[in-house]
């Protein structure tokens, strides 16, 4: 385009580029690059907001203290324990995506509308009778199912994708507070359901105490005293179940749906000719074809998992009972913003960074080796 030699042209462009970059670059330097350096420096000091403490360079002492602190290891263990929920979430998302990838539309719109209308009428009659007969809860729950069924028949998989996406979309403080009440051991939904299940089966069983219990499913492991808290469902499982509920129908499911619908159809046809059923097709075609998506999701989930647990701990448990739901992220918050030991908290943050970096590197190497079919 221009008659200037390319080198000169590029240099001229630098000024223009800087003008475009300026708003972002200033923010980047002030709120990302600057803080990174500042926090690295802070982690080698005894920075404390209490006025009596004088700022001093203390070298590696924060890191030495940290690594010899049993609580640090306990909170690290908790963080990894929560991450055991990740495979369930990812697998669940993949299975849901596999179910919902087609449009699930049968026949013409008119035909579907007729049947959906029929379902609504039958639903109104049955639920109305149940309601009048006094079983109001059954009527309510059945009405929801009839509604979902009718909408599903009418609009196909879009209905279910939407319904399953809502928990993840609405997730936030409000939803977590909702779950705190769901886990109320005396009148929460979770124990009501378990009690109802016991009643149906005619057995007497104990109810889990959820958020106020230190038990865990790995409680039987021969670990040091602090880690050992008895086998059963406790606060950690409660948070994991909630995490799966929030994650399973969320962005991961959408990413998998996109990935599965991009698989060329002739691969499925070839597998069918070779005699593969729907399970065989899933194992031999879908699974390897979505491997890049799985890789991406796993990396993001591991990075998020190591930094995670702050919201749950802050809203549901304050890190308790007995520190069982304190993760590294919540530990940084309490050490920094509650105890005001900013230097120490920064060193925890940097150890966390080392773990994230290391795990991402491992993921990267292992994942790239596995995905080489392209």
């Amino acid at each position, binding site marked *: 385009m221009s008659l200037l030699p390319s080198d000169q042209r590029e240099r001229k462009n630098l000024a223009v580029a800087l003008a475009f970059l300026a708003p972002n670059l200033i923010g980047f330097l002030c709120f990302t690059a600057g*803080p990174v350096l500042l926090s690295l420096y802070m982690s080698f000091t005894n920075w404390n907001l209490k006025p009596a403490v004088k700022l001093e360079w203390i070298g590696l002492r924060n890191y030495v203290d940290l690594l010899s602190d049993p609580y640090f290891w306990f909170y690290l263990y908790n963080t990894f324990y929560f991450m055991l929920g990740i495979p369930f979430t990812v697998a669940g998302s993949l299975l849901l995506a596999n179910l919902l990838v087609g449009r699930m539309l049968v026949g013409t719109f008119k035909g579907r509308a007729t049947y959906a209308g029929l379902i609504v009428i039958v639903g109104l009659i049955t639920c109305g009778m149940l309601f009048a007969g006094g079983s109001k809860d059954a009527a309510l729950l059945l009405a929801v199912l009839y509604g*979902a069924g009718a909408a599903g028949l009418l609009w196909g998989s879009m209905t279910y994708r939407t319904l399953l996406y809502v928990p993840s979309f609405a997730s936030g403080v*409000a939803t977590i507070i909702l779950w705190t009440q769901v886990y109320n051991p005396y009148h929460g*939904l979770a124990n009501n359901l378990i009690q109802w299940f016991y009643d149906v089966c005619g057995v007497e069983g104990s109810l889990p105490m959820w958020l106020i219990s230190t038990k865990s499913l790995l409680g039987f492991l021969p670990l040091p005293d602090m880690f050992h808290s008895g086998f059963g469902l406790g606060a950690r499982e409660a948070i994991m179940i909630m995490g799966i509920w929030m994650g399973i129908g969320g962005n991961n499911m959408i990413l998998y749906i996109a990935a599965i619908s991009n698989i060329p159809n002739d691969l499925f046809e070839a597998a069918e000719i070779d005699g593969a059923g729907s399970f065989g097709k899933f194992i031999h075609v879908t699974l390897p074809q979505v491997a890049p998506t799985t890789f991406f999701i796993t990396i993001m989930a591991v990075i998020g998992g190591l*930094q995670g647990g702050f919201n749950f701990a802050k809203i549901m448990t304050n890190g308790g009972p007995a520190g069982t739901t304190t993760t590294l992220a919540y530990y940084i918050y309490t050490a920094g913003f509650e105890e005001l030991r900013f230097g120490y908290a920064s060193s925890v943050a940097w150890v966390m960074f080392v773990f994230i970096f290391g795990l991402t590197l491992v993921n990267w190497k292992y994942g790239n080796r596995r995905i080489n079919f392209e």
Partner: protein
Amino acid sequence: METSQKTWRHSPGWRFTVMTAKFFSVTLLSGAMFLPFIWMVCTAFKSSGEVESPHFWPHIAKPENFGIVLRMVKEQFSGKFLDVFLWKWIFNSLFVASWVTTLQVLTSSLAAYAFSRIRWPGRDKCFLVYLATMMIPGMVLTIPQYQIMVELELVNTYRGLIVPAAFSAFGTFMLRQFMLSIPSSYDEAAEIDGANHLQIYLDVILPLAKPGIVTLAIFTFLGNYRQLLWPLIMIKDARLRTVPIGMLTFQGQYGSDTELLMAATMICIVPLIVLFIFLQKRLVRGIHLGGGVKE
């Protein structure tokens, strides 16, 4: 045997059975996923005496719960208005999230333009530094960022919530990938017509990058609306609370009044559900990894 199985698998009867099973299982599953929400709505209408009963359906509906949490009705026992300002909190959240979204889209798209459409020495190295910082956990940054906000005297202000979130390496990365997929013939043509970079950015690239910008805007808005840690640190004043912080204090004060808590929770989830209904198609139809203009 094998041939008969094969034909059965291709018969309409088999397809019908599979389809029905699919419909039943996903309907049940969606119903189960909605159970907590149904329970929330039912509990929000209960009286405090009835909260402990395991029934869903309240025997005597008490819609005053909503009036109480919205400060329209006085609380029964204390005879006072509750210390909650739900409308104000929702306004604060929407206000902050809208500003953050606008500013972030602006700064990110400008930077993405510089990283994708202009050639300048050191461009790709500079971009790599941006990318690398995305790996640093937010917790590392939070403490020094707070110190900086203290120095700038922005603690406990709207600006303190908006300014640090107005710049994003992620947004820059996402829009850069998107802009790279726009054929360079468009801006070359504009350049021949005598357009400068600002004109190319405004009239050529921004309109073409609209899908990417919308996606970034949705992500940013939602992420900011939900944010807990940063407002928790920054905001001390009850009137400046965003929804997450407001709900947290409400839970701390009235946590034992399950029915009020659920009524307030329901009101806070409603704006998200409304937003979801508007965005549903864009979100559920598919998010493209890395973004790109689909041919």
